[in-house]
């Protein structure tokens, strides 16, 4: 009697656990993390390049680089900073594919930092300009519908993709050392 009872109870618990396990619960454990904002439509970055550097509070000059590498993006928007020794003030520069390089300066110990991204860099030169707009305009109406030109990932290049490129026209933040961003996030 005892063994079947225990087995049934475990099955129920596991079943309930799986039922409750949904996408929006899969956030990383509490800790310092970046939350990506302004993601267009269904765009879901898998990885981004992160450079964390010390910042001299008086002069604003960038000091030693504390971290320089790629990081996984969880649930399309959460980037854990666990394992990086962050002592504010620091500057975080990051870039993901099709977005401009962005800077976030951390001056406090808050655990969640929102980072709005600007999308539209289709040729990977860390600038959104008439060249990117020309790529989207050519693709509009089905002439050159390449999946990588579909910024919002709605399945086709549309006026929404053109809108993103037109709205975000500017240059992105370079890496602190002025080197080029990694090929993987261009």
């Amino acid at each position, binding site marked *: *009697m*005892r063994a079947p*009872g*225990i087995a*049934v*109870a475990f099955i*129920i*618990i596991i*079943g*309930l*656990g799986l*039922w*409750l396990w949904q996408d*929006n*619960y899969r956030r990383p454990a509490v800790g310092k993390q970046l939350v990506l*904002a*302004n*993601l*267009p*439509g269904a765009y879901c970055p898998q990885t981004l390049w992160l450079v964390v550097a010390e910042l001299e509070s008086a002069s604003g000059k960038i000091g030693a680089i504390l971290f320089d590498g790629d990081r996984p993006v969880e649930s399309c928007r959460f980037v854990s900073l666990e394992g990086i020794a962050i002592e504010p003030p620091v500057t975080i520069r990051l870039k993901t594919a099709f977005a401009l390089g962005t800077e976030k300066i951390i001056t406090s110990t808050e655990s969640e930092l929102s980072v709005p991204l600007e999308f539209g860099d289709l040729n990977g030169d860390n600038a959104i300009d008439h060249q990117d707009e020309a790529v989207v*305009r050519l693709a*509009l*109406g089905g002439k050159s519908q390449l999946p990588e030109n579909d910024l*919002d990932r*709605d399945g086709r290049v*549309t*006026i*929404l993709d*053109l*809108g*993103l490129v*037109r*709205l975000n*026209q500017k240059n992105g933040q370079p890496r602190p050392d002025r080197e080029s961003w990694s090929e993987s996030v261009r």
Partner: protein
Amino acid sequence: MQRALPPRVLFTVVVVITLILLLGSALLQRVVFRAEEVAGSLYLSPTSFVAPLGEEVRLVIRGQVPVGTISLGAELYLDYERARLKLEDAQSASPWQTLSLTDSDGRLSWILAPRMEEGATTELAGEVEFGRLKFRTQTEGPVRLSFDPTKSLLGVVAPGQEPMVYNALASVQDSAGAVRADASASTTAQLLGSPDPSPERKLSQALSAQRILANEVLTYPNLALVLVRLQYLGTVEIRFGPSPEMGSRLRSIGLSTAHSLKIAGLDEATDYYFQVVVEDQSGSRVVGPVKKFATNRIATGAIDPRASRLELFPASAKSDALALVVLRDSANNAVAAQSPRLSSESTNVRLAPVTEVNGLYESTVEFIGNGRERVSITATSGEQTIGKQTLVFNDKLEERSVPSQTKLILSVDERLMITVLGLTIVLFLAGAVFTRLIRAH
């Protein structure tokens, strides 16, 4: 050595606590990502026409761009009967620029964006004209022009919202007409087409759990706003026209239990027939009765508070509701060019400014609080109180899909049923364990 608790009791307690923690954490961690998108629409004007053979038919493409957003452009995919009509010209309206225009096999694909000198966006909102089409009639017979709602787009930017750039298109409206050799040139509403007004899919309707809970029409000089509340998620098609044949169609795009559809391009002071047809995910249709409404005129008199009112739709909502200030004179005509205001004592709602298009005053009430709250909204115009209405916000409110007919009991709320079943089994097991313990002692 004596144990503090028998292992069976300990096990049962652990199982029960684990279950409580699991359910509690699920409830507490539930994050509701609200879609703050506001509805836009595309339509052709006139919505119905009769044209002589070999003559021109001119149609204007218009749309409703949600107020509070900035327009990025539009992608228009329009199907028409090539055998009856031949496209001769397509002119974009100011400030639009044609980026792409193709016409093949009765499908017009037209992509419009603001002109380069206007910048990336245009401040246009509310009623917007996109362009004008000129057709020439080819052969006699009924003709329908319909937007493809799956491909057409109304691109807007909503600053401060996420996603900031989105497709605001929620409904499209067809235009129906007839080409007749003996007709005089006219684009006024006349008897059209031969749609199927017969009660369709009666069996499906009888078996479907879907119900049209409420169906109200607010009329204005050139448009009518149809508010439809459904029992379960569904799409709504409005069939309408000046005759009982109802040759024109207006369809919602998304699944919802609350639909507000604007029938635009109507004639003033004219009677129209309409019928609500609801389709759910399974394809079942519920066909409502044929009803009538009459458009009115722009009032010349002052606001009559007895004929005016405030409408909040839907009456219970998750995150936002439509607020309509209906301003009427004593003859029930729409009073235009007023500045009604909305107010609420609740700090948990955000009231958008009231905007007006030809006597239609609308705004949105956005819930920024948590949990469940009854909110009172008051509408005033000058010193006059137009109306006070209450609506219930509940951020846990879920719109349910129509239950499947074969699994009706489980589909009522499958999660609830599974939870109750699981907890009953656990309770039974715990009871059995306790009984055995008592007997053993």
